[in-house]
């Protein structure tokens, strides 16, 4: 009976978890697509060359084009700088919807690590700030100090890009390693549950199923013991919560020491790679003798980017919270939650490897 309702619940959780995953990377997909997987849209006259994505793209191009003319104008008219900042801010917001701004990595990290929305916001802003800083430092050193050519600068960008992807992959590998444990424990818990329930009905009423004696990683052995009736380690009831409860680590354990260090890892992995758009704007501003305006524009752009990334991160975290609430304390629920975390960790790894190998489209470095 409890199993049946457990499965019904698991189904609900699955739906919720699917929402989490979708929200993970791109809020745009969820909010704007009527059919997320490319099926035909239900009737409705859509203007051609459009949809909201097309609109986003055209807006972005518009802002970007305005930026160069505004920087030119700012040379003679100081008030144009304010226009430049406003455009940069808008551009940052629109621009971050595209790949290469750490949305996926940050959101996946948050979901994998049971982070709070507040921390998601902090991470988003910190990584965007770092991206802006790196762009300013690259252009400042390469173009302003050394007057290096675009080819040289581009080489530097490429090295940083590869380092960033490798960092993301390494970061993902670490997450997978730590989340894999929780997931396997949850799997084992769910694995041993039905057997115990069954056994309990027959002849184990007083035994208390003390699997606690065994290490969690040996659940199969424990089960085996159990089948053979080796219950000599009976300490009564100590681990009753084995039945119907999560074996995964508690949230407090996960956000324990090292949590912030991991957070810095995320900021660094994402933030070390500057945005090509910012580099172009900075070089252009420098050539116009308006480097300071370019720097200001870059940071304002970063602010816009942070807002978009933070929004997506908060949605990912809230969707996961919702899933957790739906899952309650049920066994299946815990399993699915650990699975979602494990999956999110795996995504970070896949993402890093994919970027490294060029399977995942990212912003290309302007090299030609």
């Amino acid at each position, binding site marked *: 009976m409890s199993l049946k309702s457990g499965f019904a619940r698991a189904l609900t959780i699955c739906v919720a978890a699917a929402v989490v995953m979708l929200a993970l990377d791109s809020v745009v997909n969820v909010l704007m*697509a009527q059919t997320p*997987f490319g099926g035909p*849209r239900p009737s409705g006259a859509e203007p*051609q060359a459009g949809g909201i994505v097309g609109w986003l*793209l055209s807006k972005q191009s518009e802002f970007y084009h305005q930026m160069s003319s505004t920087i030119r104008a700012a040379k003679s008219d100081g008030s144009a700088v304010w226009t430049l900042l406003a455009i940069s801010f808008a551009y940052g917001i629109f621009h971050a919807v595209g790949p290469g701004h750490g949305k996926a990595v940050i959101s996946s990290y948050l979901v994998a690590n049971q982070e709070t929305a507040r921390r998601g916001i902090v991470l988003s802003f910190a990584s965007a700030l770092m991206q802006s800083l790196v762009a300013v430092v690259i252009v400042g050193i390469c173009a302003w100090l050394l007057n290096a050519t675009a080819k040289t600068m581009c080489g530097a960008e490429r090295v940083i890009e590869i380092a960033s992807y490798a960092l993301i992959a390494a970061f993902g590998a670490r997450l997978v390693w730590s989340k894999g444990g929780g997931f396997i424990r949850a799997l084992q818990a769910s694995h041993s549950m039905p057997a115990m329930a069954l056994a309990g009905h027959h002849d184990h009423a007083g035994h208390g199923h003390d699997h606690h004696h065994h290490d969690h990683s040996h659940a199969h052995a424990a089960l085996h013991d159990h089948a053979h009736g080796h219950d000599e380690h009976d300490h009564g009831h100590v681990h009753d919560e084995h039945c119907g409860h999560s074996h995964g680590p508690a949230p407090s354990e996960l956000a324990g020491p090292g949590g912030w260090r991991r957070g810095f890892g995320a900021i660094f992995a994402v933030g070390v790679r500057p945005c090509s758009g910012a580099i172009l704007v900075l070089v252009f501003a420098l050539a116009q003798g308006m480097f300071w305006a370019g720097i200001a524009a870059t940071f304002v752009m970063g602010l816009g980017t942070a807002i978009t990334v933070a929004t997506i991160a908060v949605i990912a975290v809230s969707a996961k919270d919702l899933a957790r609430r739906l899952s309650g304390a049920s066994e299946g629920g815990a399993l699915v939650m650990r699975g979602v975390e494990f999956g999110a960790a795996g995504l970070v790894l896949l993402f890093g490897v994919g970027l490294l190998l060029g399977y995942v489209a990212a912003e290309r470095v302007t090299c030609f």
Partner: protein
Amino acid sequence: MNIAIRRLLGLLLAAVLALGASAAQAHPHVWITAISELIYAPDGSITGVRHAWTFDDMFTTYALQGLETKTKGVYSREELSSLAQTNVESLKEYGFFTFAKADGKKEKFQEPVDYFLEYKDTTLTLHFTLPLKTPVKPKDLAVEVFDPSFFIDFGFAKKDPVRLVGAPAACQVKFQRPNDGAAGAQKIGEQNFLSGDNSNYGAMFANKISVECP
């Protein structure tokens, strides 16, 4: 429990799809205004494509960064020659963003020839000729110009975007911009964006030149 695992696999699959789909939302950083000429031999076969690509002023500035010239702000063809060299060498990796089909069969290009850069009105224009590996004489020729990853947004010049040079008189050229709404033009919309296939994502922004020679 097997059901749970299957569900999880399903979830992961969904997540990967979602990721792939949104990764496809690339956006351009470089804008090129192109003019293309199709070059024909006296026997009526097409021998190659001659491009003139004008970069936007932001990218122009970026490309010119650190380039020493005799007179500030003036760039001669000679001073730009090494940059032009770099350009065509780098473009090779992307197949010169030019994709040709003769009667439905893919055609390959040789290394570009006659390439040079020209600086005028704060923008750089890259001129280069792409000879076909083997000249062909098809009934239907299709040449598409686009960046599959959509880092570069190719738009053709408003006036005289495409020209035939030395083509038989009977040949008819048609030019289709990515979003001019002509019949058969691919629509830019969520469907394409969410198809999850980002390998050829820029194709919906392709400029299509087609030539019919009876």
